[in-house]
């Protein structure tokens, strides 16, 4: 298992040396296929268990009707004439999703955030937050030309946005590093480290012969 795991990691990482090569394609397609299969299995199993429980035990009409109605989505694959009816379950999904999310969106994502921004200006942090929010909001206000004293507001906004993007980049780098750490733990463990030595040997061999061919 460890060898397979390490082997697949090396196959994916072969992209760094040899771009789109057969090993990378095999690993990539394996991942897509396995993940799709897993998603389908979990999804289908969940629907089937809930549906059978509704029919045999609870008799919940919403689950039964919802499952049958949801199956209409597949009509588009079986009949061009009936494909139109596959839109109704989609309508319900979109409508209920929109309705359920809209209820608390204004409070959670707008009002509470505005309230938190309106802090007393006793500390430097609060002053910077208040000034930056106003400047960044003004940066995207295009009805007035950003000239004269207004250009200082937009300049401050631009600098603060760059700081935010830099922080985002730093966090993003940390996220990518953490994913490599786990892979490296597997690759450096015994006996999968031998695969690494084989990989280094292959790269060295290819590099040497490529240089020779160039000469």
């Amino acid at each position, binding site marked *: 298992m460890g060898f397979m795991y390490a082997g697949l990691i090396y196959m994916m990482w072969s992209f*760094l040396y040899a771009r789109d090569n057969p090993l990378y394609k095999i690993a990539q397609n394996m991942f897509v296929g396995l*993940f799709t299969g*897993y*998603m389908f299995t*979990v*999804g289908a199993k*969940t*629907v089937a*268990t*809930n549906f059978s*429980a509704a029919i045999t*035990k609870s008799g919940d009409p919403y689950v039964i009707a919802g499952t049958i109605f949801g199956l209409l989505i597949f009509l588009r694959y079986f009949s061009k004439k009936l494909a139109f009816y596959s839109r109704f379950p989609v309508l319900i999904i979109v409508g*209920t*999703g929109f309705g*359920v*999310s809209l*209820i*608390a*969106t204004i*409070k*959670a*994502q707008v009002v*509470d*955030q505005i*309230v*938190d921004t309106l802090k007393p200006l006793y500390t430097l942090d609060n002053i910077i937050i208040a000034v930056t929010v106003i400047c960044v909001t003004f940066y995207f206000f295009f009805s007035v030309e950003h000239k004269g004293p207004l250009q200082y507001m937009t300049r401050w906004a631009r600098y603060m946005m760059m700081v*935010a993007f830099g*922080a*985002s980049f*730093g*966090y*993003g*780098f*940390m*996220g990518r*590093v*953490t*994913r*490599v*750490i*786990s*892979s*490296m*733990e597997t690759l*450096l463990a015994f006996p999968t480290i031998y695969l690494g030595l084989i990989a280094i040997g292959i790269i060295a061999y290819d590099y040497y012969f490529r240089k020779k061919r160039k000469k």
Partner: protein
Amino acid sequence: MDIGKMIDSHAFVFAIIFLTFIIPMLSPIGLPMTVSAYVKKTYDFMQTVPEGSNVLMFPDFQIGILPELGPAYMAIFRYCMKRNMKVIMMEYNYQFGGSIQAAQIIDEVKAKGELQNKVYGVDYVHLGWHAGWEAGMALMAADFKKNINPVDYYGNPTQGMKILEPIKSIKDFPMLVLITSMGAGTQPEVALRQFQVPYGSKLIYGGCAQFIPLVVPYFTSGQLAGLLPSLSGGAELEYLTGLKAKGLAATDVMTFTHFALIGLLILGNIRYLSRRYVKKSK
């Protein structure tokens, strides 16, 4: 050898980053670690949750994100087990993958011997993936037992499970833990909309590093009770709870690689400015 060309090449960057991974992994140094304010506040909140309380954990991270978010999830699970809390796990991630990784984490904690005195179905349970995403979460929050799967992740019937008996709605959970790879604009906001706003639930959020700057405003406003940024959040929580594991082991590597990044950025800027100076002088 042209040093400028060497610095410009991708191979140089790869080599530096590779070395910063290898050296601390083969020979750990044990660099000092500080705990961020986010994790300290999260831990302080966790301390206020009474022993024996019900905790709802969402392993909503997709396949491949386990190295990043697994340590935080495991640290919280181990902490809950240590304080005899009743842990219920359920996934709503439409990207899938969380349930299988949560089961892996349970197995790892079991292998450490920390579940010896715990009974599955009484002290902890893994309910698996649930359909419906936000709508499903809204239904579950209103009427818990009616809107969970009839069987758990392992195929055991959920009806009659002792751990689920006293649960009526989301209000019966003094602590919710959302560990998700879904970005800002999706799962964190869904949890706030369906749990925090209608029911006043206290939610700890652990997420991928690139989304943390976008979620911090929810933490500073008090909407989130806790924030665990990526692997560093998990490592710091392991340090605070005293439950050391993979997260802490990786902090040396993270420190080294981040210093390497800063060094490469400075080097790149020096190279850029020197090329401009050479062009001007010509």
